[in-house]
Structure formats: C-alpha cells, structure tokens
C-alpha cells in the first residue's frame, strides 16, 4: 500500500489510482451505489455514492474519485446522508412504478394479493394459501366479511371494474379447508417463553398464530364461551358460517395455542397475575361497549344495542323483535342487525340513518343485499325521543339536512326545524357505534395508560403499551375498526413481542418503502389506462342464495366461486407490483434513508413498456438513467444496442434509433438485466415464477439468470 489515508477516522492504506469506493469496500465500509458496476468504467451519474473529503468544496462521487495521500474522507456524515436522502427522493419523484400492487399497499395486513392470485391463476392453490398465511391466519373468514379496501384501489378501476380479490382469497382458503389436512404453518422451535393473550378475537388469535410460528408458548383467554370475538358474536352466520371460523381457529389450536374461554380479565385473573405468570402480555380486548343514542327516554324506552342483539342471536338465544323493527345507524352492524331481524321474521325492517347513502360507512354490497331482502332505509332522519307504550315503542324523529363537513370530512347532519315525525316500532335496535371498556384492565394500578378516547394508548409502530412487556392491539387501541386491521395488528404485535422476548430493541415489523404509480386508480398515466382498457373484462358475479331461501334462515348467502369462476377472475388480475421487488436497490435505499419523495412531486417520466425481446422486459418509466445497460452493451459486448436519447429531464435509455428492442442489435446475452438497479430491466418471468422464487429461495427471479440460459445466450460477465 503506497498511500495512507483516513476513512471515517480509520487509517487505511491504498494503491495509487484506486477509487475511494474500492478502498472503502476493501475495508468493510459500505457506500451505496446505483450506477457503479465493478466491470465497467466508473460513470458517476447517480450521485448516491457521494462522500465528503476534508477541504474539498463539494461532495464527490466516491466511485470515480481517485484517492490521494493524506485524504480524509467521511462516508456517513450528516451532509452526506442528507445529500443521499435527497438523491433518492429526486429519483423517486421521477420514478413511475408500483413496488407492490396498490391493492396490497392498501390492505391493512399487506397480503401479497397479486402474488396469491398469480399462484391461483397457475392452479397452485397450495402455495397460494401459504403465501396468504404469511400475512393473516383468517383468509376464509375475511374472504367473507372483509369490506375489501383493497378492491377500491384495484388498478383495473382506472378503465374497468375491480378484480374480485376478496372472493378469490376465500376460494383459495375454502379449497384448503376442504382438503383432508389443511395447511398448518410450521411451528417454530420452542423458545420456552410464555405469552398471555387477553381476548380471542381477530387480533388476539392472529397474535397467537404468529407467536406460535416463532416458537413462543401462547395462552389465549376470553370471557365468552367460544373464541372468535366479533367474528363469532358480531357477524351473523349467514355471512360467516360458524364452522368456517371454527376451522380456522382450529388450525391455531393445532399449532399449539391454548385457548381458555369463560375467563375474564379483572374477574378470573388480573394484570398483576399475568405479569407474574407470563413473559409478555398482549391485550386484545376489543371495543364491545355499545354507544348510546343519547335521545330522550332512551333508558326506559326499551332499545337494544346492535351488538348485544347480534351476540344474543349468535349464542342461539331468542330475542323478541316483533314485526316492525327500527334500526338506528349506518354502519355494518346496523345492516347486520337489520338483515338478522328480517331473518327472524320481522315483516318491516327500517334503518334510520342521519346522512345519505353516500356517507354510509357500511359496505356497499351489504347495503345492496339488505335492500334486496326488503329492508327499508330512511336517510336523513334521526330519533330525538322514544317512549315505551303498551303496544310497542313510539319513536319521535326529525329530518336532517347536510351542512358543513366535520372532522371526518363527511358533511355534518343538521336537524331541519319543524320536520319532526313519529314512528311506531315493535323493537328499536341502536347500532351507532362501539367503544372500549377498559375497566377490566384495572385502572391506574395496571400502569396502562389510556387515550382521551378511552382506548389503550399504544405505540402505533410497536404496539407497546406504557407498561413494559405489555402490548395491545386491535379495536381496543384503535376503537371499533374492521377485522383485517385487527388481524394485522395481531401479527405486527407478535413481531414486537418476539423482539421483546429475545431481548432485542423493539422496533416492530420492518416497513418496506412502497412506491406507487398513482395514489388513486383514476390518476394512472394515460398510457397505462389504455393498456388496461384493452383487456377490459366483466367482473365475475358471486353466486348467491335466492331471496326465498334466505328468509327465516341463517344459511350462508354468498355461495363461493366455482373453480372455473375463480380461474376466470384470477386471469383478470393485472399483477401490479414490481417483479424486481426483492433486488431493487432504489427501494432499499429509500427505506434506509427514509425518503419522502412527495416533497418533490412534479412531472414524471412517461410510462412505456417494451416486451418485444423474447426474454427481456424494459419498463422505461422505472429507469433512473444509470446507464449500466448501455455501458455493458458498449464496453463489454461492443454491440451498442442501447443508448441515451434526448437530454435533461426528458433523457431516456432507448434501444437504438428509439425503435423496439427486437429491432436493435441486441443478441439477448442478458448481461444488462442483472446490472439494472431497479425494475426497469427484468427477465420476462411470470408473476407466479417471481413469487415462488421469492417464497422458496428468497431470490429475485427477474434478475437471476439461470446458468443454463446464461451459457446459451452468452458468457457470464467476467
């Protein structure tokens, strides 16, 4: 070593002519690069590899800067990191691509939706269920009850109807449950640690599932006589048949989770006793306290709450409702209660909702089904007073009109003066919301803090409560929310608990940076919309029980897709998301530097896909102009099939003469593909191939050139 220099305060030796990057690497100092390729002449275009040299006026690209005697280099100073962060932000602000499908990004549990659909499309439901269960343990149940936020983001919506994602998930899960031995995930080697979970609802059971996969001992306590929480007691059986739920819970028990029912926190055990007996606690007590309508005469008026009503029916108890049932509220519980009352034989079921249909929080398909069954909905009306009469209940109501938007963004209902009217009802069901009942936790003594909304106060990333070793998640920390959110919380909390039990710093689940082409389907680039419009196809309709068969019955209404229907619907999936997700350096750097590209929102490069080559797919909208492909083709292959076109912001990489790839001199040697630091260049693997490679080998099929192919298409880069 003829030269002596300092990198990050360390004395290192170097040879004349070496670059800073080379010397740093040799000494185990990591400097990120995007455009640098070992076998090519340094290009110095991406500027992610900048470092600071003492005394130099500017940062320098370490890939192309040659070392000098006595140089003092900082590779990780604040200035360097800030520059790198902005570098990534600028690149992302001009990057058009989905890291993951918009459906998956929207899903609270982040299920790999395009992944399982592509496996289904290749008739591989076994791997599909494995993939789904990486994200949640209740696909059959959720496949029936989830309000499907994913489908609202389906990219197809920009020119077509959404893919029926949820029913495909249900199909895969049903197929699995039909098998003699459904999929049971492998249980981790026992760690000897014990976790107590309070509440056997979606959040608690989900946490149990993943904690078992990690090898921790799990006991789940629930005050009800059956596990399932709101899935069991809040959702009517015609939507979620009890045997389906039981089978999915059964798998968790098979994995070794102990579920103890009729055990109530505060009554049968306390926080103190749990702390003594267990290594960690997960509170998933839900939000099961019905909110009051706050109308005059409510106490003596004889109203029953929606969840109470549904729970009683679920338990098999009789609830006398009579012929004229009025349900107050606009959420899913209101619809469930109304449809249940209809099934119990009520002739007239009316829902009172104080806003209009547009503001109704209930799932549109559920509203549709209720109306189909004959439930009436009176919009813009709310009760103000109720009184119990001899022959029923008298309800005094008032009409509303919509005023200014409130905090939730919905227009606030305002009573219309003088529009009071009266209604008679045999029963009134109040389904206007639920809250958490934290009393069981034990007040201040428990050391568990509450929020001003009376929910458990948790760290939203790690699910830690204010008490060490105690975690909480699901409705009890968020307030009443949809099941999939609680299930996701259970999984994420399991990761935190695992970190805690291993004595690691509790950081929660690693978050991927997920870039999207557009926030909303409608904002997709025109070129993409046109491509999608070309494959426009009708959404498969779910077969349903006839109205007659539904009456006075709790038979499941939605019958499930046939194999043909599922196959057909799976074909509709566009497989959004990036084939090169695994290997993308840009994405990894985005995570590492906490990039916020929205700061630089502006014009972006054009969406353009070239699939004319037999093996290579080029998506120019993902290109970051590192020039690696151009350079390898010129410097190593001397083919010059590729080149830069135009200059400045609109510069792009294009096959020669801006013609299709297969009209260039490319001989498909594939040298360029693995060099691409993003998904701009990828092998034309199918989505299913990509998923399988990732599941089995943690590999990126879009960039790994199989040895046999590499040899037949050209020598591997020396």
């Amino acid at each position, binding site marked *: 070593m003829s030269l002596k220099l300092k990198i990050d305060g360390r004395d290192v030796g170097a040879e004349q002519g070496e670059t800073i990057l080379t010397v740093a690497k040799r000494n185990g100092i990591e400097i990120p690069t995007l455009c640098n390729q070992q076998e090519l002449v340094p290009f110095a275009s991406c500027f992610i590899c900048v470092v600071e040299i003492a005394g130099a006026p500017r940062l320098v690209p370490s890939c192309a800067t040659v070392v000098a005697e006595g140089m003092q280099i900082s590779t990780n100073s604040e200035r360097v990191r800030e520059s790198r962060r902005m570098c990534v932000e600028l690149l992302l602000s001009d990057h058009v691509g989905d890291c993951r499908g918009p459906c998956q990004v929207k899903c609270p549990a982040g299920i790999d939706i395009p992944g399982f659909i592509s496996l289904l499309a290749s008739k591989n439901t076994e791997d599909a269920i494995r993939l789904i269960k990486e994200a949640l343990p209740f696909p059959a149940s959720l496949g029936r009850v989830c309000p499907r936020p994913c489908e609202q983001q389906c990219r197809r919506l920009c020119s077509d109807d959404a893919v029926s994602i949820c029913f495909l998930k249900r199909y895969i899960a049903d197929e699995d449950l039909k098998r003699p031995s459904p999929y049971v995930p492998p249980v981790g080697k026992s760690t000897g640690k014990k976790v107590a979970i309070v509440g056997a609802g979606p959040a608690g059971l989900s946490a149990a599932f993943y904690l078992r996969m990690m090898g921790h001992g799990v006991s789940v306590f629930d005050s009800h006589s059956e596990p399932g929480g709101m899935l069991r007691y809040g959702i009517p059986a015609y939507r979620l048949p009890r045997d389906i739920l039981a089978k999915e819970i059964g798998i968790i028990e098979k994995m070794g989770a102990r579920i103890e029912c009729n055990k109530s926190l505060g009554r049968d055990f306390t926080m103190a006793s749990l702390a003594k007996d267990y290594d960690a606690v997960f509170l998933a007590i839900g939000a099961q306290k019905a909110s009051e309508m706050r109308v005059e005469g409510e106490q003596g008026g004889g109203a029953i709450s929606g969840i109470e009503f549904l729970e009683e029916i679920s338990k098999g108890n009789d609830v006398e409702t009579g012929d004229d049932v009025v349900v107050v509220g606009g959420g899913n519980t209101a619809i469930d209660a109304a449809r249940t009352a209809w099934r119990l034989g009520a002739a007239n079921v009316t829902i009172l909702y104080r806003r209009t249909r547009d503001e109704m929080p209930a799932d549109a398909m559920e509203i549709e089904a209720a109306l189909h069954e004959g439930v009436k909905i009176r919009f813009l009306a709310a009760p103000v007073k109720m009184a119990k009469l001899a022959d029923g209940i008298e309800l005094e109501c008032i009409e509303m009109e919509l005023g200014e938007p409130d905090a939730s963004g919905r227009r606030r209902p305002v009573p219309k003066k003088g529009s009071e009217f009266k209604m008679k009802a045999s029963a009134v069901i109040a389904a206007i919301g639920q809250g958490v009942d934290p009393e069981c936790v034990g007040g201040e003594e428990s050391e568990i803090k509450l929020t001003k909304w009376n929910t458990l106060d948790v760290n939203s990333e790690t699910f830690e409560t204010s008490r060490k070793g105690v975690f909480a998640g699901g409705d009890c920390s968020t307030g009443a929310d949809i099941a999939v959110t609680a299930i996701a919380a259970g999984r994420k909390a399991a990761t935190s608990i695992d970190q805690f039990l291993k004595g690691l710093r509790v950081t929660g689940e690693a978050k991927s940076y997920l870039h999207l082409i557009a926030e909303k389907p409608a904002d997709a680039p025109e070129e993409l919309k046109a491509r999608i419009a070309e494959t426009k196809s009708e959404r498969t309709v779910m077969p349903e029980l006839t109205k007659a068969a539904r009456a006075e019955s709790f038979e499941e209404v939605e019958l499930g897709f046939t194999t043909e229907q599922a196959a057909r619907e799976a074909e509709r999936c566009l497989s959004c998301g990036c084939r090169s997700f695994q290997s993308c350096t840009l994405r990894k750097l985005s995570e590492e530097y906490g990039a916020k590209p929205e700061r630089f929102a502006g014009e972006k490069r054009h969406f353009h896909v070239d699939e004319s080559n037999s093996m290579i797919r080029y998506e120019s909208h993902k290109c970051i102009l590192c020039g690696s492909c151009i350079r390898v083709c010129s410097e190593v292959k001397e083919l*010059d099939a590729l080149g830069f076109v135009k200059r400045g912001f609109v510069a792009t990489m294009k096959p020669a003469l*801006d013609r299709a790839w297969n009209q260039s001199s490319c001989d498909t040697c594939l040298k360029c593909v693995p060099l691409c630091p993003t998904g701009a260049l990828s092998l034309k693997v199918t989505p299913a191939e990509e998923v399988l490679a990732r599941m089995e080998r943690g590999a990126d099929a879009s960039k790994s050139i199989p040895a046999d192919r590499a040899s037949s298409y050209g020598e591997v880069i020396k």
Partner: protein
Amino acid sequence: MDFDKNAVDRIIEQRKGAKGAAIPLLQAVQRELRYLPVDAIKQIADGTGIPAAQLYGVATFFTQFRLEPVGEHIIKVCHGTACHVAGARGISEALGDNLKISAEGGTTQDGFYTVEQVACLGCCSLAPVVMIDEDVQGKLTRTKAGKIAEDFRKRSESCQCAADPSEGLKVAKADFGAKAIAKVVVGTGSCGIASGARSVFNLLKAANERFALDFNLAETGCIGMCHREPLVELIARDGSRTLYGGVDATVAKKILVKYFGRETGETGEAGKKGKKGDLERHLIDIRKEESEEHAFFAKQKRIVLENCGEIDPEKIEEYEARGGYSSLRKVLAGMTPDAVIEEIKASGLRGRGGAGFSTGLKWKFTRDAIIASQASQASKASQAYIICNADEGDPGAFMDRSVLESDPHRVLEGMIIAAYAIGADKGYIYCRAEYPLAVKRLNIAIEQARAKGYLGAKILGSAHSLEIQVKEGAGAFVCGEETALIASIEGRRGMPRVRPPFPAQSGLWGKPTNINNVETFANVPWIIKNGAAAFAAMGTERSKGSKVFALAGDVARGGLVEVPMGISLREVIEEIGGGTASGLPVKAVQLGGPSGGCIPASLMDTVVDYEAVNATGAIMGSGGMVVMDTRACMVDIARFFIDFTQKESCGKCTFCRIGTRRMLETLTRITEGEGEKGDIELLEELCMRVKDSSLCGLGQTAPNPVLTTIKYFRDEYEAHINEGRCPAGKCRALITYSISSEKCIGCGACIRVCPVDAITGEKKKLHVIDQAICTRCGACMQICPVDAVEVK
C-alpha cells in the same frame, strides 16, 4: 418519409473513417435534407460503422438537429436573457397568433414557416430579436413581430429578381480634392447585419458601380456600439474619418449625395428634408467630449478589442498592418516554450471563460503531461491538442462572437503561440453553429494564415507545426464544460465526466489537451508584444488586464465593452452604458449568465474582479452583463435561468437532471400565484444540494441565479407567495392592467392592438379593459402613446 439516399451516400463517402465524424456527418446530412430522417441516421450507421444508438443519441442531444421535417423558412425567436427582459414571450405569442401556431413554435399549415424558440442569437443589444433564415431583425415589438412574417413572405413571393438598391438615386460625381472619400467601411458584424448593414452595404456597392464613384468599399467587424448600428465610416484621402450611426437606405443615400457630388435628381427623396432627417443627427464624433459616444469609450481599455471595427476581418494584411503576428514572430525567434509560459504566468492572465484559472499554470500542466507522455512512449511521436472554446452558449453574451467576427487572426495568433508553448501540433476551434459568420471568417483566416506560413508544417521556418480546424458545435450549453466539449469533438453526446484526470493529462482521444476560451487566447498576442508587466499593471491584485462584457438589457448604450479589471459595476453601467434606457432606477445586474447571479443595485460598487464578484454570489462568467430596471421581476428572472439550465442539463447526474426541473416547477408555481409556504426554504435546500452534488460546472452553478435572487430579493418571493402579488408587475397571474381615466385620450390604439379584444371604448372616450378576457400580455401598455395603461 422519402429522402435522397444517394445524397446521403455521397456524404458518407466523403467523410467516413474520419475521427469524430459523427457530428459533422449529421450536420452535412441535415444541411442536405433539412432534417434528419431516422432512416438516414440508420443509413449513416450502416455506411460508417458508427453505432446507430450513438448517432441517434447525438442527434437527439444537440438542439441543432431536427428529426422532423421543417417548413421552407425558419423563424428563430430569441429567448436569451436580454430578449426575455425585453418581452420575447410577447414576440412568440404575436408570431403564434399571426401564423396560427402555438406560441411555443411549430410549422405552419402550409409548410412555409417553422417557428422555433432559441436560447440566444447573440444580438442582445437589439433585443428582442428574431431571425428569419439568416436575416436577423431586432428591436421588435408585439405589433412589429406580427407583421414581419407577412412582410417576409410578401417579399419572397413578389419579386425573385432583386431590384437595384440604388434605384431612384442619381449622383453626379464632384471633385472634393483631398477631402474626397477614398474608402467607405460598413460594420457587418452580426449586430450590424441585424440592423440592416447588409442592405446598406449593397446600396453603397451598387451606387459605387453605377455612378463610378470610385471609392474602396470595405467591411469591418464590431466596434462595440451595437446601439448605433448600422455604422458606416468614411475615410478621406487625407486620412480623416467620419462615422455615421443608425444608417439606413435613406441616410446612406444622403451620405452619397453629400460626399460624392450633387444630386441631379428627378427623384428627390434623398435630397428632401425629412422631418428630422438631418444627416447631422447620425454623425458620431467619439472625440467630442460631450458626446454620448465619447462617454461610451472613455472608460474602456481595449486590448482584446483593439482591432475590432478598425480592420477588415477577412484581410490578413490589415491585421498584420496593425502589428498582427509580430508576437508570434517574437516567440518563434527567441523565446523557449518555458519562457512563453513564464511570461503568461507573470502576466496574471486568468481564464476568461468564467472560472478564472491561471492560464499560464494550465499551459504548464499540459506541457508537463506532454513531456511525461513523450518520456513514457519513448520513440513514438505523441500527439497533443489545443482547443479554442468558442461555444459561447450563455444567453445574453456575444463577446466571443464579436471577437471572432471582427478580429479572427488575433485568436489564431494566440492559439499558435499557446500551441508552441505547450507542444501541441493539432488544434480545434469549437465554435457554435449558430455563429455562421464567425465560422466563415475563421475559415478564411485559417486559409490566409496557412498561406502566409503562420500555420501548417514548420511555422515560419521553425521546427514547430500546427494545423487548426474549425469544429461546429451543434448546440449544447454544457459543451462549454471541457470534458463535454471533448466528448462532442469525439462525436459523442456532450456528457461531462469526472475530473481528474484533467484534459491536460487525458483529453481529446486520451491525449494531453489544453482548452482555453476565445478571449483568453485573444489576450496572448498583446501580452507577448507589450510584456507581462504591462498587462499585470492593469487591474486588481488577483485579476489582471481587462475584461470584455456584452452589455445589454435595460441599458441606454448597450454593446460590446472592454474595461480594465477593477472598474466598478456602477462605472460600467452608468458611465459607459449611460444608465437604464427607461430612466428608471437600476434594480439589479445579472452577471455570468445561467451560472451567475443577480447583483442588486446596492452592491453596484462591486469591482470587476473574480473574487469580488464571487463574493456577491454571482460569478464573473464569460462576460454577459444584463442590466435590469425596476420593471424586472426577480422570481421571473430566476425562473428564466433555471428554465434554461434544466433544458441544457445533459441529464446525466440525478441532482442536475431532476433537481433543476423541480426548481423550475416550484418557481413556475410561485410566478403563477400558486406558491406555498415553505417553497423558499425548499428551493434553498434544493439549491444547496444541487451545488454540492453535481459533476460539472453546469449543475454546480445552476442554482446561483435562484440563490442570489432569494438572497437579495427575498421580499419579492414572499410577496408572490404570501400576498399573491408581483411587485414588478411582471407575473401575469398576479397582475391586472387598467386604463387611467385621467390619462386616456381615447385614441383606440390599445383596442386595435389587443389580441383578444378585451378593450372597448368609443373614440375620444375612456377605454376600458375587460378583466375576464384580458390575458395580461401587456400589448396595450406598450402601444399607449400617453402611458395611460397601468399595471398592478
């Protein structure tokens, strides 16, 4: 699209195999076909072996190349700094309206015209200007701009045979004895031609022949007084000189009548007394102390420009007569290369291209590298290059063009001396293709120099040989950067690379290469002739000699000026330039073009000195100096420069490619009234990082115009963002025009000129602007004879 494939084959045949042939090939094919069909590019690739991807990359990189067919005639609308300040946008809009195409440009339906916006035509003193084919027209207004396309078309359609320009004139030669005029010199630099010098020249030539007036008609370059072009100088037998400015056909005829005899005249036009048609008004007497022209020249120090306007640039003898090539003789006769380098070092000459690196030192580095490479390659004769950077791309700068057009031999002599000092045997002058006259005169000069033995093998009998060739740049500002310029000569896209290695070690085709700017070379003969000490005696401690500026913008006397280093900006602008043309106060002066910054009026005492100018946040740059009065919006100016740089960014580095675009988008939002809180801070952050993390000078300096305007005019940014107000009354989304009821005389001029019929009013009654229709183009304000239109 069909094209003449045989013609393309002929061009390939002529040029194939030559090193760096890509750009000249594309230029030749485009000259032949008027555009570059993709199939022609493929044909070149197939015929030469140059990769198609490389040719296409080059063709789409440089602005000169067109991949689409164009109309019969091309109208270039200059959007340089001076033209921008003077209302280029309005000119583009008026042309667009008139030709029914977009203001951005395009080809007319009948294919007669293609209109383009160009970065700078280098005629800043005549702003705003357009060029129809080769014909430059300056000092346009919206109204005039609408008509020029029509007029040009009428002319080209009506009469193919040119009429005798002297028609209607009758002169009978009289005898004036010693006072008789022996020689008439017309200034035919680009500014002169843009002002009509060519037709004046033609008129004089025709009259000379027709009436046997027997004078020697000559051309000269630019004497600097662009604001008085066209200039005609009369030299009598006794050597006395008389100079006339603003000479058009009428004035020229009067001159002929006055100086050559009497008019016998049936047509009395030339003899008629015009309203103010007195010839006296056009007389320029520099010696008269009270004259404007005296003030213009008094504080100048002309080293580089000493011959400009004095000699015919196409005649080497005239250069020699004023001492030209004597420095070269001196060097070859008795100075070693090291002695030359020492002399230049001692003079303190620094690179005039902008960065200000010591010229002598740069030469020494190259010489050392050449010696080292000769040592390592033992017997092999090693090649080294000298390059003159004449790719003057700053919008608002035309120094190099003027020097090349007016005194090309001076640049050649400087280059030959440098080549001798360094040991280079091959030279290139990399000149903008937009400067056809400069290219033409350079080629003539090279031929003449070779014929006289100043160039070629064994110069003046010495052992030193040098060949120089002109390379036409194809339009890329970034090629001012050394490594990009080299890439371009090599036939590649002008994308810079990391330095070191510096071109001194590894430049053109990997050989040691020295690159200097036009003005730098032009200083060399003077230093050799007068000695380093004489040069170093001028200027400040670290900045020696003189500096040439292209003085333009809102200034009374714009033009090419050369001042001693150390003079204050105030002296340049107020004493030489005569202050603003409008009479309004100076608000700022822009120095250094897109890499420079805006220096506020409060810092006008800053002196011309590399370090002093840098301290303000601007840079000396190559010499563009654009004066702005209080009507200039500084946010708009920042936006203008960033728009330029982001278009000129080669697109290689992330920060420059995307960062400058985001800066443009943010500035555009602010000027459109959609600025948000935090925008200024975001701009500052972006600027800082773009400066910090860019490979070449373009990116490193691109933020300067933004940073200096934020630094000195932050309140103006804040007014746009917080109050939705443009204090200068420039940003259309934030202003309204109204007509003062006190001043309006109801003449109807504004009604006629309004392109959207937004103004109504009866004759002699108050006119009113309908704000809902008004597009805020400002045409009414420009035309109003009584300044009744107000902007808020």
